[in-house]
């Protein structure tokens, strides 16, 4: 009887502490040095796409903002917080629009439904270059229903179109729900972190990864910043 009571109290405490003492990590991702200038993409061979862009789009491998901000960096808890095993029930959508992947970096949980949509008047052939997960490539003519799939192992996967060589995107399959993608201002926010010691990883497709340790003791907000060294070429 006593053990049961103790257990009950303990679990109640745990649940409460998770809700009551949830910390937040805020931060900013920046770069030092001079990043290579984004290169314009010539889509003239696909007029239906080219006409959707008043000015030619540029490469998105490195997207910067004011004050050396670095956009599209995936920041996530790589260790410390055990995966709660909760796969978000809603699907994430990867759109092909104007012969470009929207969003450029798409984060999803393992086993979360991934919906791939073709909004263009032309055929695409989506080819995620996975190495840990099973690799596949599928043709998607205009007007066909979305392709739905999922990945069961965590991995960063480059995505290309086998028909339009300039199309390039990234999938980040994570085994955690504690993640964010840095905005145009370079900022990110990881809320609802229960007390504990964590390792945060920031991943940039061209510049690699950086890690930082952070300890959350209670209901507090901590700041963690990441700085990547820009590549001039």
């Amino acid at each position, binding site marked *: 009887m006593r053990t049961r009571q103790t257990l009950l109290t303990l679990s109640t405490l745990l649940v409460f502490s998770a809700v009551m003492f949830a910390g937040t990590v805020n931060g900013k991702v920046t770069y030092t040095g001079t990043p290579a200038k984004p*290169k314009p993409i010539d*889509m003239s061979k696909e007029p239906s796409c080219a006409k959707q862009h008043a000015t030619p789009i540029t490469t998105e*491998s490195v997207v910067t903002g004011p004050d050396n901000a670095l956009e599209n960096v995936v920041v996530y808890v790589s260790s410390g917080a055990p995966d709660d095993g909760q796969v978000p029930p809603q699907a994430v959508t990867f759109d092909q629009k104007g012969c470009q992947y929207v969003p450029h970096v798409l984060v999803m949980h393992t086993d979360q439904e991934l919906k791939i949509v073709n909004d263009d008047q032309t055929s695409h052939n989506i080819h995620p270059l996975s190495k840990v997960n099973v690799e596949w490539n599928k043709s998607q003519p205009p007007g066909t229903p979305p392709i739905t799939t999922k990945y069961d192992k965590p991995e960063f996967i480059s995505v290309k179109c*086998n028909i*339009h060589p300039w199309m390039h995107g990234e999938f980040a399959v994570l085994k955690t729900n504690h993640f964010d993608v840095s905005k145009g201002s370079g900022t990110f926010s990881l809320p609802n972190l229960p007390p504990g010691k964590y390792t945060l990883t920031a991943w940039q497709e061209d510049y690699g990864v950086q890690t930082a340790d952070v300890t959350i003791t209670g209901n507090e907000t901590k700041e963690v910043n990441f700085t990547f060294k820009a*590549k001039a070429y």
Partner: protein
Amino acid sequence: MAKLFAVIIVIIAILSAIPIVKHTWAAPEDISTHGALIDEQMGETMVEAGIAFLAAQLILALFVWQFSNRGRESKLKTFPGGAKGLVIGAILLVGLEVLALGVFGVKAWANQYLTPPAANAMPIQAQAGQFAFYFRYPGPDGKFGPIHPEMINEGNQNLFGLDPEHDVESRDDIVAAELAVPINKEIHLLMHAKDVGHSFFVRELRVQQDFVPGLDVSVHFTANKVGKYEIVCTQLCGLGHYNMRAYLEVMSQQDFDNWLKQQSGQ
């Protein structure tokens, strides 16, 4: 019945000759200095093959008309044997015709393939890959930086696998998705395939040349009419083959210089 067949053969032969004689499907306007020779050669081939075709059909019809009702007991000539002279004569005639086409065709062929480009021809590199063409200009230094296939990365548009960080010659190289050339300037197109076999075909330019993986192939040509022409892949190369194209833009020297400047500024 046999006579009806003979008449139908004659009608089909004449009907198929009409659009050829009337130039119903004429080739598009030629925009190259070497194209006139090719067109002339094509014309000659068409006339010779056309005459041979018509003659063969008419003789066939004549024979059918003449000898269709000879009865069962008549004897057929066989080869070798009775028809020896006729068959040898036919072989010689066709052989001579093919040989003559070859001999006369050398002029057009040699002009394009056996003659090296002029020393001052402008080198442009063409790379074919599934499913797009890309072109590289050497830039002000006149040198192409080396290619590192392992560094090819379409995601950041490093389409040729250049390493400007370490290769000084690569830094001013210009890579474009269209082939811009100045008018009346000989172009030496250095071609290589990134993956499988492709082909470079511009109808107006009268150039069709395959890309062969592993081989450095080249062609040279001089375009002499300003305009925009389609470059298509004419070697089935995979799923997106139908969509593999680029544009050849023939410009005045001034426009070309501006274009280069604009490209290198990007």
